[in-house]
């Protein structure tokens, strides 16, 4: 265990959020079992009041997860010097592969809780709260994810074996790790570039079709495409976008882009990517809910907003990603 302020902050924060989510889940279970919107009993009134608490806890948890995701990357970036052979945060993550799981969990929690909030907002627009029960069941899953995240964080940081202070043999026998990041970095840039732009075009095309036609198939397709775009974009960042940003033909780190040296380009880059994927995911997820009559209208109205935002963020992301490719000094 490394006693590092960032690590302490992360673990303490995740712990607090987990406890809060656990409390929210207990309330959630009560709501699932006792909920009856048609009743005017005291109990129902109390439950309705509790829903405010639950949704405000989840909002705070989402806010926390966004910030802690950043903090996690910064921290991992700050401690790489403790590991022999690590050149950037990728090295720190490879030092104990659980770190990657923690990162993935954080990303999943981000999407899950923002989708939950979207779900909640739609649900609150209907007078009979049709999604009350499924919503709280979904929340229990988010709680599990948060617990998993805490577990991964703790086991990542406690499992790190930095070459602590001149231990005589440590530095001589240790070896630098390899992981799946290395495999991704090995993807050939040229085909990746082609795949990336084709995917983005495909996404925009499907989104435009969705805006025009009401077909359910298109909505599921766009959700699938959003997932696919996310994977392709992450792979592209590692495989070629980072190269152009760093202007070095072998520097594949997906995290260094957050640093000052690269004008903090990572923030707009990742924010637009995450927004793109988030808005892309929504139509397909809400498609089955259109069957609930009190929601249909609201979903159809929001859907237009989501699709347009999805297109906007796709364009923004592609522009940011293409900028260094077109105007940068590196030629592959």
């Amino acid at each position: 265990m490394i006693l590092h302020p960032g690590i302490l902050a992360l673990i303490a924060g995740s712990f607090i959020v987990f406890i809060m989510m656990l409390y929210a889940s207990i309330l959630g279970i009560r709501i699932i079992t006792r909920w009856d919107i048609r009743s005017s009993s005291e109990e129902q009134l109390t439950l309705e009041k509790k829903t405010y608490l639950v949704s405000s806890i989840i909002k705070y948890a989402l806010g926390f997860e966004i910030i802690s995701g950043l903090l996690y990357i910064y921290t991992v970036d700050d401690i790489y010097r403790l590991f022999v052979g690590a050149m950037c945060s990728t090295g720190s993550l490879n030092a104990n592969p659980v770190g990657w799981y923690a990162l993935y969990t954080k990303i999943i929690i981000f999407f899950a809780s923002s989708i939950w909030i979207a779900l909640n907002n739609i649900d609150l627009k209907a007078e009979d709260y049709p999604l009350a029960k499924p919503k709280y069941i979904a929340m229990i899953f988010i709680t599990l994810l948060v617990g998993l995240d805490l577990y991964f964080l703790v086991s990542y940081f406690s499992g790190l074996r930095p070459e602590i202070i001149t231990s005589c043999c440590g530095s001589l026998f240790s070896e630098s790790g390899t992981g799946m990041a290395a495999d991704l970095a090995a993807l050939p840039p040229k085909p990746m570039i082609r795949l990336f732009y084709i995917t983005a075009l495909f996404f925009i095309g499907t989104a435009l079709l969705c805006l025009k036609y009401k077909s359910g198939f298109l909505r599921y397709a766009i959700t699938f495409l959003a997932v696919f775009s996310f994977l392709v974009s992450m792979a592209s960042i590692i495989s070629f976008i980072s190269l152009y940003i760093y202007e070095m033909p072998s520097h594949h780190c997906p995290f260094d882009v957050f640093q000052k040296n690269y004008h903090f380009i990572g923030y707009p880059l990742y924010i637009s990517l995450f927004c793109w994927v988030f808005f892309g995911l929504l139509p397909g997820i809400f498609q089955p809910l259109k069957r609930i009559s009190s929601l249909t209208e609201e979903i159809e109205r929001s859907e237009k907003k989501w699709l347009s935002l999805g297109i906007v963020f796709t364009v923004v992301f592609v522009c940011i990603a293409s900028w260094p490719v077109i105007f940068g000094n590196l030629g592959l």
Partner: protein
Amino acid sequence: MAEGKLLIHIEDVTKIYNPGKPDEIRALSGASLNIGGGEVIVLKGPSGSGKTTMLSLIGCMSRPTSGKIVVEGRDVAKLPEHFLTNIRRKTFGFIFQQFNLIRNVSVIENVLLPLYPLKTGLSEMRERGEKVLGDLGIREKWHLKVNRLSGGEQQRVAIARALINEPDVIIADEPTAHLDRQLSLDLLKILEDLNREGKTVVIATHDPIVYDHPFVKRIVEMRDGRIQGVTVK
């Protein structure tokens, strides 16, 4: 709201507080009432007769234990709080027995409070506030803290606050309880003017000054949570 059109429909409404507990109170049982647009109606009865409960149900502040309440054509008896608040904001203005102003806050801020959670712009808010205060003749006191005002002025601030979101219905709960005779008459004058502008006024009171006043059209007598009788003047 057109004169005479049915505005609020209450049918067989019961409200029980703390059901199933030793301190269970049956505040209303099987009350039915219709209120038309532009009407002035007084709920009259001793304390504990269910007037206040009736007002809070009419004003969408709480939900009945059973029964049906329709406000402007919308069934509100089963609506979640969030929607009730929305209706309350648009339709009702409240005047309370103790004025219920927020102490140590200026007159204008007290008056504008109902608009804070809405999307109204700042300049529009100021305009509306000045207009309402001007109508009630307390415009020059806008910057004072409310606890430095006299009782009558406080009552006016409370009325101004009730009017700021341009409600169709004014609900007043024992509005004259803390006022002397002259101030009570002033208040009734204001309510009368508002009624002339087309607002519906619902008052709960046991003060004869109020229910003997000529502008009151209908008196609903309540006792023990039931409606005893209706007098139309």
